[in-house]
């Protein structure tokens, strides 16, 4: 007689007393297998010259390049120095973007005047590609470090502001009224009800913003950079050093995934209620 928890099917529902529940591991296992299959195809494509090795070097060469970049570096800096510079740019931008966007989101959600002033600005920024405003930022602020941070920050403002506004608006009327009936001032309603309630949305906004920041990084490091992952990728691309380009791309992807994972973890630790709403 078959049961829902049939041992031959790892995807079946668990039955009391059975030893191991595979279901939580299925995405990880499938994800790992997919990655391995992609690497295998990549290896076959370059070793069999389906694609020229100049355009697609084999995984082993990219790995050797990765080690070489750590030890010897490329364009006067090691991989860690490039990555460190890019991380500093992305997180400085995140800091300044959050400093502006969280209060902006609160104002958009709580004040008609705030909405009138800030909403058009955010909606103007939201769809703009960073390459469109990069020249203007350079004209206004020069080619130094502030311009790079500003370009990345501009790409981060809209997701954080929109998520904050949405989170602040999600507070129920009865929660606000409850606080008011305890004698809470407008500021106390904001700090005790609206902001804690909006925290999961703010973290989601920061996650989206970090994604946008990594996307913008390469554009920001296009002009007058001497260090950074985007600069390393562009320098390598100019001389068709494809293995370094691929290492750069993979490092950006790895950093992006690592910080996404850290933020998801922080979300679980600091806003555990958000999964039970």
């Amino acid at each position: 007689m078959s049961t829902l928890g049939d041992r031959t099917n790892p995807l079946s529902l668990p039955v009391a007393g059975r030893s191991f529940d595979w279901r939580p591991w299925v995405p990880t296992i499938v994800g790992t297998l997919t990655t391995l299959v992609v690497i295998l195809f990549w290896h076959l494509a370059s070793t069999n010259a389906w694609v020229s090795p100049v355009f697609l070097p084999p995984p082993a060469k990219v790995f050797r390049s990765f080690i070489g970049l750590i030890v010897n570096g490329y364009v006067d800096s090691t991989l860690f120095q490039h990555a460190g510079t890019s991380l500093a740019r992305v997180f400085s931008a995140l800091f300044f973007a959050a400093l502006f966007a969280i209060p902006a989101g609160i104002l958009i959600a709580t004040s008609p005047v705030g909405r009138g002033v800030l909403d058009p600005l955010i909606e103007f920024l939201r769809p703009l590609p960073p390459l469109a405003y990069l020249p203007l930022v350079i004209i206004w602020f020069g080619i130094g470090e502030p311009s790079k941070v500003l370009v990345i920050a501009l790409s981060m403002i809209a997701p954080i502001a929109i998520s904050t506004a949405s989170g602040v608006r999600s507070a129920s009327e009865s929660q606000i009224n409850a606080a008011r009936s305890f004698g809470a001032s407008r500021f106390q309603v904001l700090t005790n009800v609206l902001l804690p309630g909006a925290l999961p949305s703010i973290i989601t906004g920061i996650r989206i913003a970090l994604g946008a920041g990594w996307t913008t990084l390469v554009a920001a490091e296009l002009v007058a950079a001497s260090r950074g992952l985007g600069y390393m990728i562009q320098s390598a691309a100019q001389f068709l050093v494809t293995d370094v380009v691929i290492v750069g791309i993979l490092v950006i992807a790895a950093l992006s995934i690592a910080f996404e994972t850290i933020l998801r973890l922080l979300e679980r630790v600091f806003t555990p209620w958000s999964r039970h709403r």
Partner: protein
Amino acid sequence: MSELRLDGISLSYDRGRAQRGPCVLDNVTLSVGANEFVAVLGQSGSGKTSLLNIAAGFIAPSAGRVTIDGVAQAGPGAGRAVVFQDDALFAWLNARDNVALPLRLRGLDVKERRQRADALLAQVGLEGQGGKAIWTLSGGMRQRVGIARALASEPRFLLMDEPLGALDAMTRERMQELLLRAWRTSRAGALLITHSVEEALFVATRVIVLAPHPGRIVESLDVDFGARFLDGEAARAIKSDPAFIAIRERLIDAIHETELRVAS
């Protein structure tokens, strides 16, 4: 002795400058004294929740005024605590911190807040549950936290908007008993909005029936079944008492009559 008074309250929601919206409440006058438990009954659309929101100061009436001991009230205040149907608890705080929030807003120190919150939780039957996350509590437990939180502000008036409406029948009966005991301990005046005639009769010292379209008082009745329970009589014995049943049927008839009038 404190008195919360709603004097000649009318409410209509304006639809703009030119148009006046439908009248929700029409010249309702009602008072709740200290140690008095007033229950308001009425079918949907009779303006019960609007009446409570006006009493709490959440919305302003189109006409009339709300006073406490003769002093006009504009907006909500710590003297009137509200228990909501959807419990309105803060998911990011545990049960104790939810109850302690009104005390925090009043500036009490952490130790005193904790002691008083734990005492209030014990009063509503949640001793030792203060550290629990809100989402791990059952509907009945959450409402008990909501009641404890309302009592934490030591209100002169406890306003309750169908707080037991979403509970199952058995839990609801236990909560009615708990509500009565908590009310007596608090010495606050209470205003309860409910759909349940039996609940209103059991807990209230006065039952008011609102007729809809527009909301107005059509029946007001003093009862003492809650006092009998607090004096030690069993809740089931009270609810099966012929006098209780007779009044319950009379009130149900009164509510049905208002429905029929609206339908015709």
